[in-house]
């Protein structure tokens, strides 16, 4: 939760011409929008470009935000479509659950983890790594639900799905995450 003025208060200032007020919105949501973008591309520079583009698009279309949903829901929708447009342009490979490279990446992550155990011996780091091994859809739905403070209905709005479908997909994503954690990080988990 954010302290200080609400999103809508800041946005009405921006709409009245106070462009600098938008910086507060950027600070509030930059990590989340950046994390969403990282689910679509492994390259941090590309993810930063996507996030920046999403904030610029949101600013330019601000007059169209009618306040019917939370600003964050609207912004994440823009971030998702911007990521997809970027992918289409760059034709990057989306992380696939069945992709062999993902498992190779998992092995290297795991060995990296072992080599640097003192610094990275954290369950949270492991969960983050395990999320990184999920497919884009699974990782996004988990991020939206747990870090974006979005309800099932709001995630449905962002992804264009029915809330019940979101519920099923979230359940499956958590199941797959659990499997990944058991498969790659069981040793580390038992050490903690």
């Amino acid at each position, binding site marked *: 939760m954010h302290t200080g003025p609400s999103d809508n208060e800041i946005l009405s200032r*921006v709409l009245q011409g106070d462009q600098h007020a938008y910086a507060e919105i950027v600070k509030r949501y*930059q990590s989340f929008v950046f994390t969403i973008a990282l689910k679509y591309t492994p390259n941090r520079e590309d993810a930063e470009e996507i996030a920046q583009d999403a904030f610029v698009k949101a600013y330019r279309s601000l007059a169209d935000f009618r306040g019917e949903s939370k600003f964050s829901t609207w912004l994440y929708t823009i971030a998702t479509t911007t990521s997809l447009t970027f992918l289409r342009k760059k034709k990057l490979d989306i992380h696939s659950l069945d992709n062999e490279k993902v498992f190779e990446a998992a092995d290297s992550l795991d060995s990296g983890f072992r080599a640097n155990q003192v610094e990275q011996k954290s369950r*949270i780091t492991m969960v983050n790594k395990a999320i990184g091994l999920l497919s884009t859809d699974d990782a996004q739905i988990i991020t939206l639900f747990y870090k974006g403070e979005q309800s099932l209905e709001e995630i449905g709005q962002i992804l264009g799905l029915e809330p019940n479908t979101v519920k099923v997909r979230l359940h499956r994503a958590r199941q797959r995450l659990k499997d990944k954690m058991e498969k790659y990080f069981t040793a580390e988990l038992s050490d903690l």
Partner: protein
Amino acid sequence: MNTQKNIEERLWSYIDGTSEVEEKSAIEQLLKENLEWQRKYKELLDINQLLHSTELEEPSMRFTRNVMEEIAKYKIAPATKTYINKRIIYGIGAFFLTMIVGFLIYGFGQIDWSANGNLNTGISLDKIDFSRFFNNTYVNVFMMINVVLGLMLLDRYLSKKRDEARHA
């Protein structure tokens, strides 16, 4: 049907707070009595807490400044509803409707209603003289009216755009 999958699905709904009231009390009862449910609940609760404590990725330190520098180049675009002029939409609709109705009237006008009801007329498309339809004075007049109407709509649209650009 207490399969592992079923238990997990029900427990996740319970943890997320999306269970119905009856289902919620049924699960609470199972958690009091059933060891398997208790073990699974603890396991899922642990994952849930871990997921809540995951960290977001941070962009570079300059990110906010980069965005602010970028948006300084732009203005907030007017709301879509302000530049979609309903009168233009209705005008275009009326234009096409007039065309369709005109063609229908003309088409019906060409039918010989006095002919008897013999369905096997043996119409051969290659024998129809299509040039007759487009060499007709009425059709030419009708097309001319439509062209003029179209040009008027285009003129109105371009004038509006020019005025907006002048006031911006």
